[in-house]
């Protein structure tokens, strides 16, 4: 499976300019609401038409503005899972699943039975969608898509309308259900946990542009630029002044950071994740910051501290430091740490 797309389209507030190609079977697109990621999916499905560009799946041209090819959504063989599932409200579960089938009556009934079994919908065939739970609805929607064997399945924020408990359960189910699907799946989401869990390859979008692309784990480890780092969940950023190839001054934090790796000329920010700070009591060592506690918040499984660098000359914003429960015991024993340490391999150098 291979998919490549170049999509250009003028939108209300910005222009969508997306260009990617991938051989991966599980692709994630991460971006804030309204960054153009849904429009990208809709363009691939043929629901929206780009101003220009091209979309090719498995060597099959679905859209090409140069040669004026624009296959109808009906001809693209691409499944689209809508956020609200878009089940047909007046049709029963069985009729919903059969909606996209082209064969004769007997074949279709056979196929529906197969899908009902596979997606554990036994006994619900004659129910209407409104009578089903959220999880059942999702399974019907997937069964409806899988029934006609699309080349690509697009998942448009499939979990964003669900509460936390259900979300985890449905994510697990979704991964299971898609396990033996041979085609490509593209999932769009604003939830970094969701795409991290789901995708092998990741695109990060901001304001209609792709700001980072590559293997998912690699991007979370080294986002490369500030926008990508923020979308992968990094909370703390500082402008920097590069002293030499191994030393930088974090202007907003008022400290010097010494690194073993080389600091590129093009680096203009440093980022650090809120969970990665290491509390230190006693002696000050390298790459540490002294701080004043500004406020804190108690959560069920962690505590969030909002701190200010002690150095007043730093124009700094609040720094977030999140401590998980198991580490809190140490804090309770020793009291507030004197310093917070930055670990070299967790420091993000950003363009």
């Amino acid at each position, binding site marked *: 499976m291979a998919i490549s797309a170049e999509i250009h389209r003028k939108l209300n507030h910005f222009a969508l300019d997306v260009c990617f190609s991938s051989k991966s079977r599980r692709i994630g697109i991460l971006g804030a609401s309204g960054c153009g990621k849904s429009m990208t999916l*809709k363009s691939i*499905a*043929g*629901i929206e038409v780009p101003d220009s560009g091209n979309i090719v799946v498995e060597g099959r041209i679905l859209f090409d503005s140069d040669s004026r090819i624009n296959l*109808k*959504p*009906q*001809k*693209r*063989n*691409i*499944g*689209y899972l*809508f956020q*609200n599932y*878009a089940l*047909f*409200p*007046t*049709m029963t579960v069985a009729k919903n699943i059969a*909606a*996209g089938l*082209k064969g004769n009556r007997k074949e279709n009934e056979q196929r529906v039975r197969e899908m009902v079994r596979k997606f554990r919908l036994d006994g619900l065939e004659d129910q*209407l*969608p*409104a*009578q089903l739970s959220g999880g059942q609805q999702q399974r019907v929607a997937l069964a*409806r*898509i899988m029934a*006609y064997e699309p080349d690509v399945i697009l998942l448009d924020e499939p979990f964003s309308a669900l509460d936390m408990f259900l979300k985890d359960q449905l994510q697990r189910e979704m991964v299971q259900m898609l396990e033996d699907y041979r085609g490509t799946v593209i999932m769009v989401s604003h939830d970094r946990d969701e795409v991290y869990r789901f995708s092998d390859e990741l695109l990060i979008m901001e304001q209609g542009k792709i700001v980072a692309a590559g293997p998912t784990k690699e991007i979370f480890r080294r986002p490369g630029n500030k926008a990508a780092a923020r979308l992968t969940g990094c909370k703390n950023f500082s402008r920097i002044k590069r002293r030499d190839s191994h030393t930088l001054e974090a202007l907003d934090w008022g400290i010097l950071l010494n690194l073993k790796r080389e600091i590129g000329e093009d680096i203009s920010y440093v980022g650090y994740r809120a969970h990665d700070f290491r509390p230190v009591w006693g002696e000050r060592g390298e790459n540490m910051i002294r701080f004043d506690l500004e406020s804190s918040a108690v959560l069920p499984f962690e505590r969030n501290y909002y701190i200010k660098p002690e150095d007043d000359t730093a124009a700094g914003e609040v720094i977030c430091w999140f401590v998980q429960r198991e580490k809190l015991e140490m804090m309770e024993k020793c009291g507030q740490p004197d310093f917070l340490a930055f670990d070299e391999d967790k420091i993000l150098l950003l363009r």
Partner: protein
Amino acid sequence: MEEIMEILKELDWSPLFISLKTGVVATVISFFLGIFAARKTVKAAPGKKAVIDGILTLPMVLPPTVAGFFLLLLFSRRRPLGEFLFEEFGFKVVQTWLGCVIAATVIAFPLMYRNARAAMEQIDVNLVYAGRTLGMSDMKIFWKIVVPTAGPGIASGTILTFARALGEYGATSMLAGNIPGKTGTISQKIAMVIQDGDYLTAGIWVIIVMMIAFAVIFLMNLISGKKMKNIGRW
């Protein structure tokens, strides 16, 4: 009481059948035309939409006699269209039952169209998109998904259309006239006997009309209520 029995015995029932026939035919025509027009308008671009919508709704806003005036202008045999219809197909509209149907349809059609359109605009557009990505033709999507989902709105539009067509008076009297046994509808009959001061006959017809109207609405509510019980509306 005896007087009423006397009148009932000698009553000419033709207005009832003419009205019912007119109402049913006008409703069937309006049903399909209204849904078709609603579909076109929902799909149209905003500017175009406003213009089409204005034209289609006009008959409901104008006094029926104004609609009747235009219909006469259009269908009179002294006018090009009326002449053409008569010469080529032998259709006579003015002073015929066909005129009754056309007048009732024109007046009642906007009710069907507006209700159907409002119901269709409520539909989650993702349902249509889902149908397309599933490979369903636009025709199939419309009749299998859009119309059933818009069912309650379309049903109430149909009821109102039938009620309006059944009672049409102004345009009908101008285009079709009041020929007993041919174009004499219940509404026209009531107006006519009132002019003669025959309140008793008028009253009988009024009761008949009220019973029909109530029966129709009751029936439709029963059907649509049963069918739509399990469908969540959003």
